[in-house]
């Protein structure tokens, strides 16, 4: 498997999830197990730059794909989450960070969301409503959503200025 830029050889049963492979086999415990059923987003990782729930992914299906976990992330979002109180307990944070990285890439590629007013708009503005909708796959039981939205907006604006 290709994880955070390195190649790792693993021998796994087909029933092992990508999440369990990362945490139990490789000790990459940054990726969190929340619901283990695709309902909370705590296990979000990037595969070839796209965000997915690693709990519903069988590891065997992701052999050879470029997987990035929070341990392999070095992104302005991390400092922004700290500066904007984008967390309290922090359990959802690795998933939030990976999800936001994937989300910003989707937005940059012109992907619409359920709240995009004009579906054919090639470059929908990343309003707070857009950020909330696009990040709805990541729950935060502490309720740090306002800080999370502030963090994502701050980084999105900075990226657009760059």
């Amino acid at each position, binding site marked *: 498997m290709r994880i955070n830029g390195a190649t790792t050889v693993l021998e796994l049963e*087909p029933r092992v999830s990508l999440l369990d492979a990362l945490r139990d086999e490789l000790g990459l415990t940054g990726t969190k197990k929340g619901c283990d059923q695709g309902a909370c987003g705590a296990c979000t990782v990037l595969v070839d730059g796209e*965000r997915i*729930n690693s709990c*519903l992914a069988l590891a065997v299906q992701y052999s050879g794909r470029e997987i990035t976990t929070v341990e392999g992330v070095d992104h302005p979002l991390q400092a922004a989450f700290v500066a904007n109180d984008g967390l309290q307990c922090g359990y959802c944070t690795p998933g939030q960070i990976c*999800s936001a990285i994937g*989300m910003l890439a989707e937005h940059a590629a012109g*992907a619409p969301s359920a709240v*995009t007013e004009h*579906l054919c708009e090639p470059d929908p503005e990343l309003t707070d409503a857009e950020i909330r909708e696009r990040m709805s*796959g990541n729950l935060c039981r502490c309720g740090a959503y306002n800080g999370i939205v502030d963090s994502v907006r701050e980084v999105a604006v900075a990226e657009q200025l760059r």
Partner: protein
Amino acid sequence: MRPFGYVSAPDVATAVRVVSTEPNAKFLGGGTNLVDLMREGVERPDTLVDVTGLPLTAIEELPGGGVRIGALVRNARLAADPLIRSRYPVLSRALLSGASAQLRNVATVGGNLVQRTRCPYFYDHASACNKREPGAGCDAIGGVNRNHAVLGASEHCIATHPSDMAVALAALDAVVELESVRGTRRVPLLDLHRLPGETPHVETVLTADELITAVELPHLPVAAASHYRKVRDRASYAFALVSVAAALHVREGVVTDVRLALGGVAAKPWRAHQAERVLLGAEATEEVFLRAADAELAAATGLPDNTFKIELARRTIVATLQELLTDGSAA
């Protein structure tokens, strides 16, 4: 999770051959529903045939103006496709209102169609469920049934089909292509899913060894003015209580073409033929929209927790048609 064998299929012929010959084998797409059901012990295959490597990932314009969608196109990519966004906006909207971005990045078109109900009694081994265990009974009928069906249910099952995408496809007259060792066949989407009747565990007309390979959308000009409205308990990342897929064309105040389908109300995406009959050729007014909704919902029956859905469906039908009328796209 029970152990199982895993095969990555190199081509369609191998995939359908292995599933037809190996006992208790299933196709594996994105896994977003199947892996969950296996972890819960509801699905218990002995072999999974991974089809995600098959070359069924194209979105192609057809000579007649329709579109052919490979069964392995991921939901997110289909929703963002320029052809779908401009010609079939109801499909983009439906896809974008389903699940989360993470799930849409993985879930396939074929898998979306054959995903299973999220009825909690179906998942709970301590409860009776005729889908999970034919003949066991249905604890949803006397239980908590807020999310359950008001159309087409039976005394054996009141589960709903959870897909948003399929509701849009039902409105768009989509056709599903199936492949097996016996060859290829094409089934209208409206005939793919079955109502529960006495066999709620038989959810589609697919045989166990048939693979969905593509979905085709016909050339359908009315779809350019189409919308999907989804009503749910929270604003995002929740299944529908009621949803409406609608396409409408109005000329000089009269409905000249219309497509209408409902989600969250039945075991299959529910095409509202009765309502369409009232609408076609009638004046495009709120009064007519209400009459059309009432015609469709005349057969609806509620249970203690879900009777509200009938009125909710009525209002959502009217609101969706009004929106298409007033935003100018239907003219």
